[in-house]
């Protein structure tokens, strides 16, 4: 009897102690949620799980749950979550969402404390500028970047004797070279040399970069307060494109369709391209792809870039905010982890980490374009409306509307949205 009593007492004690241990453990652990857009393999749980495991090993006091978004429904999911007070703690995306959208709406945490002097010195200036709003408040801490390029069908260029108009070594060409190359391809019998795709906003950075680079125009002013697409340089570029044989303003396709048409050999050039496209389509292409910077008169291309990093939603819980910052600091600043985190994105680091893709010829070739990364203007106010107005404007030009008239209408719409 006594033995049974002692046993019962011991078991009760064990249960109480284990319950207390669980409670104590629960008190010590902070749960945070990470929502990630598919930035390279950041949309793939197999890749992200390893990163999370490393973090949780280094910081057992923080537990991270991950949810994967896509670009079709992701914005709606995030906006619904914000409206319902269920926003994630950390999110991985670019400044056009973190700074210009959610940051501007006041739902993000100021990450200035992560931007130490050391960080500011290490991270490229163009990236630093993109991660803050006009008042200098940082809503993003960057992880990786890429430069969007264009690409040409090298076999076709060679057959049309058009390789002479570009520099294969530096991947650059002049506006005059571009004009001559398009003409040479057209004369060779390539009816569809390229398409200024304008069926929607998909891949629209390609058409903006093309127009802006040809004669040195810009999409916004340097302060990102006003749209400048109606500048004489941009009008000249649009008039050039509208009048060129072999270049169609095509309202039935978007960037993704253009890539398919390039990959299957229908088009000789793609204006919407980057290293991810080359990797994804490697098995489908039966010709040599030559990635190129956009043609310029000055020889100094300004490429549109993608900058991706972390933002923290202000959920009003200091412990979770601190845990979120710890997570960001580990992913983006820990010497070993940052390399792995960037590699998962398949892009390049936002600071000099040496060649993290040593031995990978393709990544090393595309790394040459990062030096051409231009102004990250996507943080300008009224961005959503301006994007739509841009492809609508291209559609108008494709239908024969006078370029100056179409551009003036675009500027009026976009600047009205920026002023709101």
């Amino acid at each position, binding site marked *: 009897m006594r033995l049974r009593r002692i046993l019962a007492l011991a078991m009760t004690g064990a249960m109480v102690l284990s319950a207390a241990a669980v409670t104590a453990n629960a008190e010590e652990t902070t749960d945070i949620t990470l929502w990630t857009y598919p930035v390279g393999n950041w949309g793939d749980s197999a890749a992200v799980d390893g990163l999370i495991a490393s973090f949780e090993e280094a910081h057992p006091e923080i537990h991270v749950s991950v949810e994967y978004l896509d670009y079709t429904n992701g914005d709606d999911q995030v906006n619904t979550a*914000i409206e319902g007070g269920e926003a994630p703690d950390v999110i991985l995306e670019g400044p056009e969402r973190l700074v210009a959208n959610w940051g501007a709406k006041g739902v993000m945490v100021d990450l200035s404390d992560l931007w130490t002097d050391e960080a500011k010195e290490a991270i490229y200036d163009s990236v630093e500028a993109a991660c803050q709003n006009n008042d200098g408040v940082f809503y993003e801490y960057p992880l990786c970047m890429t430069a969007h390029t264009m690409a040409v069908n090298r076999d076709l260029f060679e057959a049309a004797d058009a390789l002479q108009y570009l520099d294969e070594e530096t991947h650059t060409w002049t506006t005059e070279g571009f004009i001559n190359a398009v003409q040479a391809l057209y004369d060779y019998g390539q009816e569809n040399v390229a398409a200024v795709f304008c069926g*929607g906003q998909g891949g629209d950075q390609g058409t903006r970069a093309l127009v802006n680079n040809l004669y040195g125009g810009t999409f916004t002013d340097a302060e990102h307060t006003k749209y400048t697409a109606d500048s004489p340089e941009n009008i000249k570029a649009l008039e050039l494109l509208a009048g060129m044989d072999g270049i169609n303003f*095509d*309202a*039935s396709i978007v960037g993704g369709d253009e890539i398919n048409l390039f990959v299957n050999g229908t088009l000789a050039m793609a204006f919407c391209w980057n290293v991810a496209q080359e990797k994804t389509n490697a098995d489908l292409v039966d010709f040599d792809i030559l990635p190129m910077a956009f043609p310029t008169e000055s020889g100094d291309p300004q490429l549109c870039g993608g900058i991706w990093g972390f933002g923290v939603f202000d959920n009003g819980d200091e412990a979770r905010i601190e845990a979120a910052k710890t997570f960001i600091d580990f992913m983006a600043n820990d010497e070993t982890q940052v390399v792995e985190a960037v590699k998962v994105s398949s892009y390049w680091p936002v600071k000099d980490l040496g060649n993290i893709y040593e031995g990978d010829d393709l990544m090393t070739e595309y790394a040459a374009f990062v030096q051409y990364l231009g102004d990250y203007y996507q943080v300008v106010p009224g961005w959503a409306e301006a994007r*739509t107005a841009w492809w609508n404007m291209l559609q108008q030009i494709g*239908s024969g509307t006078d370029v100056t008239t179409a551009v003036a209408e675009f500027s009026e719409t976009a600047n009205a949205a920026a002023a709101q």
Partner: protein
Amino acid sequence: MSRALVRRETVSGYLFMLPCLIFFLGFVIYPMVQCIVTSFFDSTMNRDDIFIGLGNYAELFQDKIFLGALRNTVIIVIVSVPVVCIFSLWVSSVLYDLSGPLCSLFRCVFYLPVVTGSVAVTVVWKWMFNNYYGIFNYLGKNAGLIDKNINWLGDERFALGCIILILLTTSVGQPIVLYVSALGNVDQALVEAAEVDGATRLQVFWKIKWPQIKPTTLYILVITTINSFQCFALIQLLTSGGPNHSTDTIMYYIYYNAFKLYRYGYGNAMGVVLAIIIAVLSAIQFKASKSD
């Protein structure tokens, strides 16, 4: 029946209805009321709504894109509703005269686009209309009808027509099935009597069959009108309203304003206007049907 029994049955009736009623109130009535209320506000994300009275409605009727979308929607309705009704009635009349298995086969064929996912249907049509290698351009050029490729979905002269054509193919399935059933319910004694009296096929149809299938026609008219007014997926997947807003519809413009620009109040005002238009048209259709 005693009053107590009546009361008990009434209470049980309401209890049985309650789950459905709660669902209906929560997910149909409440959003409708909320939509109407929000339409009087300047409502967007993460900011308190600002009451602006009829401001959204005033803006609507000065918004050229909305008026263009309204015009396009009306064109879609005017073309698709009569065509769907007449075509499906004709097809079902032919099918009804076919033998059993053949009739079932064709019913399945015409119903297939209805049960196929709209995305899959749209992708196939997009391929057929493709500017560079679509089958329509291929056939047109080989038949000598066109000398160079037509950008069907990228040319404002053709884009809306293409949308209507696709809408027709996805809309006729259900009316055909309904009409075949309705024709099966026509009193054959009357048909045979009329035929014995020397009535022509047209007279038999117009005097005997048509009055009996009128309720089905009314249902098809109302449903097709509502579906045509709510044309959205095709536009979203094929043209995004372009080129030059030539395929914008009210539903697409509502989506664009509410979920791209986050102008909830403005989007809701459009929703209210669309609901009023549909309600008025449906009432007219009911009235016209009764006055016959």
